[in-house]
């Protein structure tokens, strides 16, 4: 309700005042011209190998039928030993992973320990279940902690799965086919990277919502190797002309200069103590 004076200050958090108005507006436009949220219609994949976890993602972000971002970063930092790939609504994955990262940083500052992957998964699960799927974030969390190498997936309604290899996003079926065929327990680093790359490549080739480059993130006990881009797409277009206007392109028709008269009203000098 748009009142100038309210009886109590609005509660912090989500505000549903405009939800009724938005529903009415959606009916008015006939479902044709409402602005669509930026989705990451993606292929993301993860594989647990001998020394850690490999996460991979494509880099296309779509808004309806238009590619909105050709080089979007889908692998988000959670903590020095945990990274998260996000599919779904881009803003939701960004914000949720940011909040998760802040929470884990507060925890590790308080306790002096590196956060564990299960803690990240629990925080995410509580947060996403609370909003009953309205936050569209399909996440793959991978990390190495004192208990080993872990790979989890969290769905938008709060479902959690712990698996050695998985893929999410609109291209997940294509990627999963490659992963099912090529996965073996205790892979070495190079075959694991190659498997993830092939899985994301399958998603890019067979799904319209995924495309452009492939990013890879390798997490081991020693550290993190975030390779962006791991493989660039061969179909990059070259701009034939520059679109910047050269100086002097717009002719000046008239020019009028008005000098501003400023007069000194008051002058105070304050000595700085430089002793």
């Amino acid at each position, binding site marked *: *309700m748009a*009142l*100038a*004076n*309210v*009886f*109590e*200050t*609005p*509660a*912090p*958090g*989500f*505000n*549903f005042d405009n*939800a*009724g108005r938005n*529903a009415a507006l959606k009916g008015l436009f006939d479902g044709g011209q409402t602005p669509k949220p930026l989705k990451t219609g993606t292929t993301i994949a993860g594989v647990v190998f001998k020394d850690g976890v490999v996460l991979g993602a494509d880099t296309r972000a779509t808004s309806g039928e238009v590619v909105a971002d050709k080089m979007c970063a889908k692998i988000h930092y959670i903590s020095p030993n945990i990274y998260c790939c996000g599919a779904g609504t881009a803003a939701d994955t960004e*914000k949720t992973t940011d*909040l998760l990262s*802040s*929470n884990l940083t*507060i*925890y590790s500052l*308080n306790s002096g320990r590196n956060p564990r992957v299960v803690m990240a998964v629990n925080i995410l699960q509580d*947060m996403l279940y*609370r*909003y*009953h799927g*309205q936050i569209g974030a399909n996440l793959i969390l991978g990390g190495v902690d004192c208990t080993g190498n872990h790979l989890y997936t969290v769905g938008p309604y709060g479902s959690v799965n712990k698996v050695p290899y998985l893929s999410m996003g609109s291209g997940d079926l294509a990627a999963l086919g490659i992963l099912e065929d090529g996965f073996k327990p205790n892979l070495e680093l190079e075959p694991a990277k190659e498997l993830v790359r092939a899985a994301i490549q399958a998603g890019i080739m067979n799904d319209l919502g995924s495309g452009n480059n492939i990013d890879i993130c390798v997490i081991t006990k020693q550290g993190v190797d975030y390779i962006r881009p791991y493989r660039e797409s061969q179909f990059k277009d070259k701009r034939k002309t520059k679109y910047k206007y050269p100086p002097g392109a717009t002719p000046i028709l008239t020019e009028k200069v008005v000098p501003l008269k400023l007069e000194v009203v008051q002058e105070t000098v304050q000595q700085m103590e430089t002793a």
Partner: protein
Amino acid sequence: IVPVAGFSPQGAYGVQDSLRSGFTSVKNELLPSHPLELSEKNFQLNQDKMNFSTLRNIQGLHAPLKLQMEYRAARQVIQRLPFLQSSNLALDTLRNSDESIGFEDVLNDPAHSEVMGEPHMMVEYKLGLL
């Protein structure tokens, strides 16, 4: 339980006060406009209820009673008047929400609220005189 708009109108004789809260619409008031609206309004209360009942089952009746007394002290006794800003430090410490960050810290911060309350009206509303 936090009341939903329309079920207890604020005007005299139990009728909606058009001057203060605008026109009424039965559909708007009977049904919440968003599936999350009711669950979010009551979320903190429901969490507290769940936690207190678990605590009662584990440690006995005294534990939730003592805690609720402290909550009441932090919320009603120490709390400022409704139109003054308060950092809620005591309440946050009791609830352990000073060590976690969520959407309620990022979105719709009361410090940056766009609407202002008139102090007299707010105090009268809080005391139930309005």
